[in-house]
């Protein structure tokens, strides 16, 4: 084995030994309670992301539906009226549903 190979082997072995020590420290750092908190947080984040996706889907589907109705009726007025009613009505329904949900949970 050449001197260079020896050096290389020693370098890699030393680094591996140091990384093992870091593993030892890392294993002590992560405990069960900490993990539980992290999991709960991740689940909350996922729910939030799914809700966002759902609302986006809802808004775009309502828009497409209204546009289709307007095209079928061939009336720009119908488009504007339905759009206005939806813009006011949808948040109102959402607000009422949330209020009811809060009442039930409390």
């Amino acid at each position, binding site marked *: 084995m050449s001197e260079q190979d020896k*050096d*290389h082997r020693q*370098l*890699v072995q*030393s*680094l*591996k*030994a*140091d*990384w093992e*020590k*870091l*593993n*030892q*420290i*890392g*294993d*002590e*750092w*992560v405990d069960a309670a900490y*993990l539980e908190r*992290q*999991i709960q*947080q*991740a*689940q909350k*984040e*996922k729910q939030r*992301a799914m809700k966002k996706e759902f609302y986006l889907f809802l808004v775009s589907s309502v828009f497409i539906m209204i546009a289709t109705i307007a095209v079928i009726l061939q009336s720009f007025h119908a488009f504007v009226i339905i759009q206005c009613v939806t813009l006011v009505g949808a948040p109102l329904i959402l607000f009422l549903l949330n209020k009811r949900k809060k009442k039930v949970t409390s």
Partner: protein
Amino acid sequence: MEEDDWILIERAMQGEEEAFSMLYKRYYSFLFNYLLKLTLDEQISADISQDTMLKAYLRLHTFRGDSKFSTWLISIASRVYVDKKRKEKRDINLMKQMKVILSRQLKWKSDQLQMEWSDYFAEFNQLETSIKMPILLHYYYGYTYEEIGEMLKVKAGTVKSRVHYGIKNVRKEMNRIE
């Protein structure tokens, strides 16, 4: 990939929270220890581990199972870390002046456990992330240059030259010190 893992992944994809929780518990330490070797900071490692697990959870449907789940997680974590470093580029001048050393908490813990670090380790930690990462993945985790290339989205040849350049640099610095 372990069959057991695949069952858990499928259950988690179907929305079973318990399955995800089991995957989280199984792989968090592995991910945290990988990041600790790169960052030498528990808080940063914990933040990136959490980010990575969340990203994996949200994109679980994109996991095809052609590699190990741990490999998939390492590739996400590596990219999250590289992005974070890129965002911190503004402070690069400040970072260049400081030597990358163990965080205070980590140093306290290693002192408590009477751990000593090699000179190679000190020199290795001065390397850039793009060099450090493939060296760690190749020599510690045993990934091939091709696998690392896929994980970090670079060519296998680039990975190989980065590993050689990094090792050569560490050796050069050591010779200079001696």
